[in-house]
């Protein structure tokens, strides 16, 4: 990304739970209109960091500015310009997708046509289905649809592709790229490095509540290679996932 204007700025973020320090002295910027990846093992503090930026969790100390708004005083303003997909969040029981979108439109105070939202994530055929009846990939796409209702400047996706099959995963990548190309900044967490490499403009590695590396995937790989790192096995021109996709086809199976 050529534009280097920071839309999210995190400075010296600390989060303590009693004796446990989940996030210690974390600082980073997310630039406007980039796809920013937060990577790291489970329990590293990725979700905690996201939820503090999303104003869902209080921080212990530090400063966070989201599009000029401070998380301390302008949580309400921030909520209006962000879209949030939570890890494993459920939806109101007994409602179909259209009704859920209507509900969120009301919660955001947005004037949208529910069917158009579903079309954006290719779920128009499931308009009358219940959330529970959707497949894993459909659930994630629906979650992403709910984050787009208020036409947010930034969306946060917490492990959106965990548990999905390769086709659904690739399809979600397309959707995320599409959303970014419409001018939305995307912050994403993932455990899949191929995904981060494909999707993210820049990634931050989080370990024990601290950022241990932050750069473009390319630069990070180059740095490692220049330090003399070599893979044990010769890299082939395709990997097993390419074989999978080649054999089973690119279409979704939902």
């Amino acid at each position: 990304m050529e534009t280097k204007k920071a839309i999210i700025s995190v400075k010296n973020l600390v989060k303590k739970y009693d004796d446990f320090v989940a996030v210690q002295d974390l600082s980073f910027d997310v630039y406007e209109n980039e796809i920013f990846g937060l990577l790291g093992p489970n329990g590293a503090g990725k979700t905690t960091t996201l939820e503090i930026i999303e104003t869902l969790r209080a921080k212990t100390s530090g400063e966070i500015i989201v599009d000029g708004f401070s998380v301390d005083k302008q949580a309400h303003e921030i909520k209006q310009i962000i879209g949030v997909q939570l890890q494993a969040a459920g939806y109101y029981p007994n409602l179909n997708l259209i009704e859920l979108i209507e509900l969120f439109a009301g919660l955001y105070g947005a004037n949208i046509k529910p069917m158009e939202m579903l079309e954006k994530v290719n779920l128009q055929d499931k308009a009358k289905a219940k959330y529970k009846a959707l497949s894993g990939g459909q659930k994630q796409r629906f979650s992403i649809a709910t984050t787009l209702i208020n036409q947010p400047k930034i969306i946060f996706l917490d492990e959106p592709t965990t548990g999905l099959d390769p086709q659904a995963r690739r399809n979600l990548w397309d959707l995320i790229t599409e959303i970014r190309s419409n001018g939305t900044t995307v912050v994403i967490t993932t455990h899949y490095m191929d995904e981060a490499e494909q999707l993210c403009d820049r990634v931050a590695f989080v370990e024990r509540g601290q950022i241990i590396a932050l750069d473009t995937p390319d630069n990070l790989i180059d740095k490692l290679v220049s330090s003399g790192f070599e893979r044990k096995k010769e890299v082939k021109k395709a990997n097993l996932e390419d074989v999978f996709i080649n054999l089973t086809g690119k279409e979704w199976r939902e």
Partner: protein
Amino acid sequence: MNDNNINAQPDREELNSGMKKENINRISGYSNTKATLALAKASFRSIIRSPSAVVFTLAFPLIFILVFGFLGGGGTHIDIGISPGSDLKNPVIVMLEKTGMIRLVKDKSKKDFAKLLEKGNVDAMIDVHRKVNSVAYSVNVVYTSASMDKGNILKSVLNNLFYDKNLKPSIAEIKESTIHGREYKTIDFILPGQLGFSLLSTGVFGTAFVFLSLRQTLVIKRFFATPVKRSSIVIGEGIARIGFALIGALFIIVLGNLFFGFTLVHGAITVVNMLVLATLGVIVFMGFGFIISGIAKNESMVPPISNIVTLPQFLLSGTFFSIEAFPKWLQPISRALPLTYLNDAMRKVAFEGLNLWDVKFQIMILVIWGIGIYAVAVKVFKWE
């Protein structure tokens, strides 16, 4: 499905242009009312599609009404008012006092008795005095059409007395008459009780389950990522629950009136008064639900805790039997429960035709309960 995916490419252009257009139309003002109503609508849709809500609010009360409607009242006793100025030492009253199923009501003015008689709260009135220039007594009995079945029992009791060998010399005559009163049917007692129970269960169980599950499935957390206020979530849920409870109440009242002859003294006005009471009742009972959703660790803990709240009220608040039928030591407990006052107010409004101001005492007790419950609910309710 597959076709759509292959064709996803051309849609992208539409998506782009669509989004840009919408960005221009971004709405700047945020409406809490709109958010609250959206939640109320969603919640109401969810409630009417949830089988347990429908069963608890409508099916259970209707089944009880059916069963008791056909069963009729058991455990008969006859309340007889003794006219002021009656000679209490006379053998007739002494004899009546010894009869197990007869309860004598004393120390009320003639005016009070007339009212009670009309409503069927006392089944008859008796006036005994010595005949002038005679050792014999004259017995004057007034029955009421509001309670003719019990009047008839009394009639035969009195006839027995009249022909009793020991008493016969002292009774000269029995004069009988009947005043016209409103007929108090079993349904008039059972229906308000069932209505109260329905409001109690929908308020307690419904609220507890919904808030616990919204919390556990992170639905509320997702809501918090939107600009919605916490109060909107509670009020929206409340509107839906009250709306559903009132529809249920109306359904029960109308059905009771049409098929079982449930008495509505002032017709539609009575129904409106009952619905106002129902609203107050649900709000109070929802408070219990908020507390339970806060203290329950998981869904399987909701029914036992809810039953601790609902069962005693179900049994002791005059849902099936009049509180007066309970042993003396149990009655103070009954009189401490909120449902007792809701049932009481409902019956007074429906059958006696009182207005809401006349039942202000019952309303006051409910309000006090409400304040107490919500004070606790604010402390123990959990959002996350």
